Every structure is written in C-alpha cells, then in structure tokens.
C-alpha cells in the first residue's frame, strides 16, 4: 500500500471533501496561495480560489465568529489555526457560541465546523507555540476532540469531521506531521469514539495520546524483549472517549498507565483513571498511574524542553514501576 505523511493524508481528506462539497471553505493566515504554514492547504488555492481558501487578517476571534455565522447560514467552514495556541483569543466564540449553538437552537441549527491546528511540545517552539487544549474541550460540552497519531487515522478521522454536522477540534501534533504511514487509495472514514489497539498484550495496558502512541509502542517493543507483554490503546478521540475498549483491556491486564504529553491536573488521564477505577474497581491489581508532561509553561531551551515531556526512557521506567507495584 502507498505511504503518505500525516499532513499529506489530512490534506487529501480535505481535498476530497472540498471537491464533493462546494460549501466547504477554509480560513486562516497564509492558507491561500501560500498553502499554509504547515502545508495544510498546498495546491488547493489553485483549484478553489480565494473565497474557499480565505487568507485572513490576524483576528482569530473575528474569523472564528465569522465561521460560526457562516455555519448557521449553510456553509461548512474549516478554521486552520496554524498553531492551535491561537484559538485562545477565539475562546468565547468557541465555548459560548459554537459549542452551544445546536443546543440553544434546540437542534434547528447545525454547527458543521472544523477547527484544526498544530499542537505539542518540540522544536523549541516555546510557550506561545506549544499548547494543547484537548482536555479543556473534553471538559466543556459541545465539541468533538480528535487527536490522530498516524497518517491513516488522520485521513479517516478528518473525513468524518468534514462530513459531520458537529463542531470538531482537530489536533495535529507538530512532531507527527512528517511521519509516514500506509494510507489506502480507497475512500474510508473512521468513526469518532472508537479507540484503536495498535498492540495487544496481557500484562499491562498503556493508553497513549497522539505523539505518545509511537513512543509507547517503541517502549512496549523494547520491554517485550524483557518478557513483558504490554497492550497499547490509542483513543484517537478523547471526546467522545471509548472507555469500553480501555475497560476490556484492563479486565485482561489489571494494570493501567495513561501517557499524555498534556498537563496532568484535570487532564485526559484523570478522566480515564476516574472512570476505570469506578467501573472496573475489582479488575485493578494496582493503582492506575498517569505519566504527563510537566505542569509548567513550555520553556525554549532544549535541556528544559526535553525535561518537560515524557521521553522513551521515562515511559519504559513508568511501565516497569507499575509492573512492580
């Protein structure tokens, strides 16, 4: 099967849907002729022109509010934030308008809007270009929150986002954008709320998010040589969250570690832990553990930046520790 990079796969999904659906338009800074700071729209401007690939002024709140109204009036906007950090100024439009519009209108209005952006710590991007707000939008009602970990999922999940009628926050980890993977030529979609199990195992369950998935798979591979059988689960979407796949795994292994680059307090790992200990109390042979990015703004310098994020060694160590508990 052919291989594509993560960003090529996501772009292919966008191109295919734009070809089918004339009301899809993209807004963002440099997503027109330039093709996007992260090549998210390369080539599309030549096909669809300025109205459907709309370069914006630097007014995140403004163009998110504009897209809200456009979605209410029959269009299907895609907001390309470049760095997801830039959603911050649009928070009110997202939380009080987009997320609540279908509810407030008792379902008479739909809100088919996809907000995408690159996130994650790496490349000395420093604290204004390293954020990830997935847990915030999992906490607040009204958004689907998608975090693909590979090109195949990126395309299939992005197509689901573009075909649906709900607000979607589509988060793309900067350090995964150029990772390659198999992507079939045939059309396909991946439903939200369905976890993947990229590795089966019997001794311990690791739930990993986005970039932590490849790291967890490597760690598991390494530990296999030590006779440890680790199962790795990739939720793919954290809202909705596929808790059943996690529960089944814990029922088998009795041990659960959640690895997430994002902050720990009130994070995804906290929610998974709270649900699992409640629903699978008797399945647990040891406490559920969380491995998160350090609870700090993201520093610039490599020595500090590295210390802020789970590393292959820290993951391996966390697994060993939990096995020994």
């Amino acid at each position, binding site marked *: 099967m052919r291989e594509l990079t993560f960003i090529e796969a996501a772009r292919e999904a966008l191109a295919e849907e734009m070809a089918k659906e004339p*009301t899809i*338009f993209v807004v963002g800074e440099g997503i027109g002729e330039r093709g996007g700071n992260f090549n998210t729209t390369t080539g599309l401007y030549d096909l669809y022109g300025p*109205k*459907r690939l*709309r370069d*914006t*002024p630097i*007014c995140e*709140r*403004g*163009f*998110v*509010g*504009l*897209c*809200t*109204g*456009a*979605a*209410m*009036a*029959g*269009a299907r*906007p895609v907001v390309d934030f470049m760095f997801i950090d830039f959603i911050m100024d649009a928070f*009110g*439009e997202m939380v*009080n*308008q987009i997320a609540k*519009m*279908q*509810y*407030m*209108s*008792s*379902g*008479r*209005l*739909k*809100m088919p809007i996809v907000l995408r952006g690159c996130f994650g710590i790496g490349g000395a991007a420093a604290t204004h270009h390293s954020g990830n707000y997935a847990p915030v939008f999992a906490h607040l*009602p*009204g958004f*689907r929150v998608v975090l693909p970990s590979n090109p195949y999922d990126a395309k299939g999940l992005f197509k689901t986002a573009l075909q*649906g*009628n*709900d607000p979607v926050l589509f988060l793309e980890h900067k350090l995964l954008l150029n990772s390659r993977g198999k992507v079939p030529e045939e059309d396909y979609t991946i439903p939200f709320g369905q976890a993947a199990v990229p590795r089966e195992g019997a001794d311990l369950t690791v739930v990993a998010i986005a970039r932590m998935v490849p790291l967890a798979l490597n760690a598991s591979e390494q530990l296999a040589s030590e006779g440890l059988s680790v199962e790795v689960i990739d939720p793919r979407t954290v809202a909705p969250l596929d808790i059943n796949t996690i529960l089944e795994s814990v029922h088998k292994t009795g041990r659960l570690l959640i690895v997430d680059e994002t902050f720990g307090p009130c994070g995804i790992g906290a929610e998974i832990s709270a649900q699992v200990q409640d629903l699978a109390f008797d399945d647990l042979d040891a406490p559920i553990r969380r491995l998160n990015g350090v609870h700090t703004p993201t520093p610039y310098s490599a020595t500090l930046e590295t210390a802020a994020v789970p590393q292959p060694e820290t993951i391996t160590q966390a697994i060993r520790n939990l096995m020994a508990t």
Partner: protein
Amino acid sequence: MPNTLSKEQLLSLYRCMLTIRRTEEQLARSYQAGHIPGACHTYVGEEAIAAGVCAHLGHEDAVFSTHRGHGHALAKGVPVRELIAELHGKATGCSQGRGGSMHLFSPEVGLMGTSGIVGPCILQATGAAYAFQLRNLDHVGVAFFGDGGVNNGAFHEGLNMAAIWQLPVIFVLEDNRYATEVAFEYSSRNTNVASRAEGYGVPGITVDGNNVLDVYRTAGEAVKRARKGGGPTLLDCKTYRTRPHAEGMRDGGYRSMEEIESWKARDPIDALGKQLVADGTIVQNDLDCIENEIKFLVGEGVEYARTSPWPDPATLTDHIFSHGA
C-alpha cells in the same frame, strides 16, 4: 421618499412598532408578577429601528442580535406568543424554554439567534453574509447591537472583514447612549460611529433611530446595495431606551428624569401615528383598530404562555450534538 410608501406599508410599520411596544409592556408586567424567572431587557423606545430595518428583510435574510433582542425577534416574524412563552420558560417558546430573553432562536423566520454575550452577533452576521456570498445568494446578514458593543474587539474585527471582502451585511448600531449605566460619551471619545465605520471602508450613515421612516429609507438603501454586491453598511441609529436597562433594575443615578422625559416626548410610535393622521393618510380609527388587534394578540400570548407545558426534564441533554450526545 416617505411618500413612496403605500398606506399598507406605513400601517405595517406602525403595527410592527406597536406590537413590540405592547408585548414589552406585557413582559414587564409579567416580570413584576414573577412569571419571568430570568432577565428581561425591553426594547421600549427603540421600536422604530427593528421595524424600519426588518421591513426590508425576508425569512432567508439572517438576523443576529444581542441581549436586547425581543424587538428584533418580533419584527423578523417570531409570533408574539412564542416570545412570551419563551420568557415564561415554556416548551412552546421560540427556544423551547432553553433560552429565555437573551437566547431567542427562530431560524425558520431568519432570526438566527440572540446572544447573552455582547459582540458575537456582529461577527456572526458577517459570517452569514460570507456564506451567502460563497453560495451566490442575494440574501443579507444583519447585526443589531448597542453602543456598548462598539468598544468591543468584535466590532473592529467584524467591520474590517466585511469591508475587505465586501460582504452583504448591515451593521445596525442602536446607540441608546448607555451601556447599562455607563454613558457612551464616557466609554468612547468619539461617539460618531458612522464616521468611524468609514475608517474601515464601510459606508456609515447617521440615522434618527426614533424616526421609523428615516430608518426605513436608509436601511432600504443599505439592503439594496448589499444584495447587489455593493458590500456592507453601518447604520448609526441614535435612540434611547425609556425603561431601565433590565426589568427590576434601578433607573436613577446615571441619567436624569428630564432626559428620559425629553426622549419620551420623541416617541417613535406616537410620532408616526400623529403624522399619518395629520397628513390624512389614515384616520384615528385605523390606529384604534390596530391597537385592539394587538391588545388581543398579546392577551392571547400571555394565556398561551400560561397554559403551555414546561419542558420535559428528559429532554435536558437533547441537541447538544446533531445525532445525540
């Protein structure tokens, strides 16, 4: 220009304004009687603006408003009874009891929504206009907002985007001189918003907001230009609310009795009625008939609200997403 209006048109402007007035007076009474559990911001004194603008709009045209939206809802075609029922929190209200005074939704008549947050309506109307332009429709987006919204970033970002993309949107500023108790002269050094609109490249027109014929004429030109692809317009309507900011609030301290009385003397409904009788277009009896019609309509609305069922708690989480939560 007024004389180009037929008797029917003139009477329907009068009827629209009086319908708003009598409904608001009833809502004020209902509030005092304890039948309205939430906030209630009335439009009394400002009726000419909603009536004069909405007379040019069809159901496909998209209206967005803010916390003081009763008048816009009625002028756009929301039945009196559905508005009253909504404020009573009944399932038969225009938002099925989910919204109340600040969250009115009737997309079927083009009332796309009112918002409890100041600002978003400006951006959403701009976005609806974007969708109409994208879809090659000759509909327009209309935002009604107050002087308090002018100092908000949404005004700046919305007008700029409307200007650079020449979007079919009408920005209707209802400058009633106060944001709650804060005077516009305090919160802006320059209260000539029409001229400030020109600074963005948006034609700005100062309008006597208490003269429905002036509003009708200027709005007509703006809507016509927008439908023809001529881009946005801002109507800077100078007006006044003659009731407190919200029912149950004090109305002293920040403005004088004299000021309030001087504006009551310029009541837009009396003015039109007197003028039409004076120039022989109609006789007093025509007005009395309208008064009676509306009296009946409002009375029927209250009864409807009183006897309507409460929302079923089982529907609490309906419509958060397009296909179930």
